[in-house]
């Protein structure tokens, strides 16, 4: 899910994908069409509430209390969101974060750190019963969960394709990255896309060591990220609206709202987990 750290996999063009994966995608599309997807549109929330809601909503969907759901995140403040297996001090300059007023939170999924700023990022989560990707390996499911976004971008004239394991890419560089958390019977897939990007701020906040760049042969990490703004003049809100329209057309989508119980459950998770030093520094 990292925006800072594009992966080094050779870029795979769509026509090199096997017919096997095409058949799998068709099977997934069928299942997704009958799943009764609900939409939670962007709502401005604190970074810690955003990561807590992911766990709260995953549990709701996993227990069958909510249909499969697509949620777009809204950001009340800028933040660094660490992957669940990342070390705080190895990834982020905490002093710089404090000076810049950037929150640091840890999410429930693995992958890399991302730097998000209100209005500069598009982030969404998909909460799904595991049945919706039954028969698909975890690695292959990354591409399956994001295929509608790649198509949505292509319709807007953005040259986008999936670069396994977890990147949405363009010929100019990485556009976004995904991460998945799994619990028995349920999947959380979330993706962050760079719309605009302040490379200077990102490089000040995130430690991007020499080792991370060792197999890249490029000096500048920021150059490897190509925000959408470089490829389209459309405002961010229009891009989000188009992605929602595309999802609706492909799988069906009904507007939904967070229930009081869901919000309360997320608030409890903030108090007991995501807002605690114990969770943030579980890997110091």
């Amino acid at each position, binding site marked *: 899910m*990292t925006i800072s*750290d594009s*992966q*080094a*996999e*050779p870029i795979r063009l769509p026509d090199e994908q096997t017919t096997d994966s095409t058949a799998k995608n068709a099977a997934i599309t069928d299942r997704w069409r009958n799943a009764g997807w609900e939409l939670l549109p962007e709502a401005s929330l604190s970074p810690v509430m955003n990561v807590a809601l992911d766990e709260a909503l995953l549990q709701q969907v996993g227990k069958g209390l909510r249909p499969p759901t697509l949620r777009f995140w809204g950001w009340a403040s800028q933040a660094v969101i660490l*992957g*669940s*297996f*990342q*070390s705080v*001090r*190895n990834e982020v300059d905490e*002093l710089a974060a404090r000076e810049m007023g950037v929150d640091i939170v840890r999410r429930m*999924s*693995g*992958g*890399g*750190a991302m730097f998000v700023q209100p209005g500069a990022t598009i982030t969404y989560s998909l909460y799904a019963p595991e049945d919706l990707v039954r028969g698909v390996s*975890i*690695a292959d499911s990354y591409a399956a969960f994001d295929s509608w976004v790649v198509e949505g971008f292509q319709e807007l004239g953005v040259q986008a394709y999936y670069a396994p*394991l*977890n990147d949405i890419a363009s010929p100019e560089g990485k556009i976004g990255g995904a*991460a*998945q*958390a*799994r619990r028995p019977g349920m999947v959380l897939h979330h993706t962050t896309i760079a719309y605009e990007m302040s490379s200077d701020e990102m490089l000040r906040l995130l430690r991007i*060591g020499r*080792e*991370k*760049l*060792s*197999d890249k042969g490029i000096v500048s990490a920021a150059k490897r990220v190509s925000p959408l703004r470089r490829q389209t003049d459309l405002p961010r809100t229009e891009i989000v609206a188009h992605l929602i329209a595309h999802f609706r057309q492909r799988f069906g989508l009904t507007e939904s709202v967070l229930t009081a119980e869901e919000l309360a459950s997320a608030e409890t998770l903030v108090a007991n987990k995501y807002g605690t030093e114990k969770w943030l520094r579980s*890997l*110091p």
Partner: protein
Amino acid sequence: MNEQHGEYKTPGGKLVVVDLTIAEGRLATAQVSGDFFLYPDETLLSITGALIGMETAIALEEHTVASQITAALPPDAVLLGFTPESVARAVRRALVAEPESEVRK
């Protein structure tokens, strides 16, 4: 106690970071971190569990360390973007690195 730090970027994959402390010729503590994906989450404890208590002379042998990690993995473990060999390489790098408890902020 000195802290030893090693990193290894899996070619075409993710970064693995290992932080170790050593006492009485063995790995006293071990933290494995990085931007990899690992399922289920608790598998990380199996990986660090395989390292803690290991003699440093053995921990330098990448092949042995990788086999011990593999043996400790639960049957349903899925590692994406890294391998037991990546962890073993980062362990070795941590062991041969200069102690850096003084310099890290």
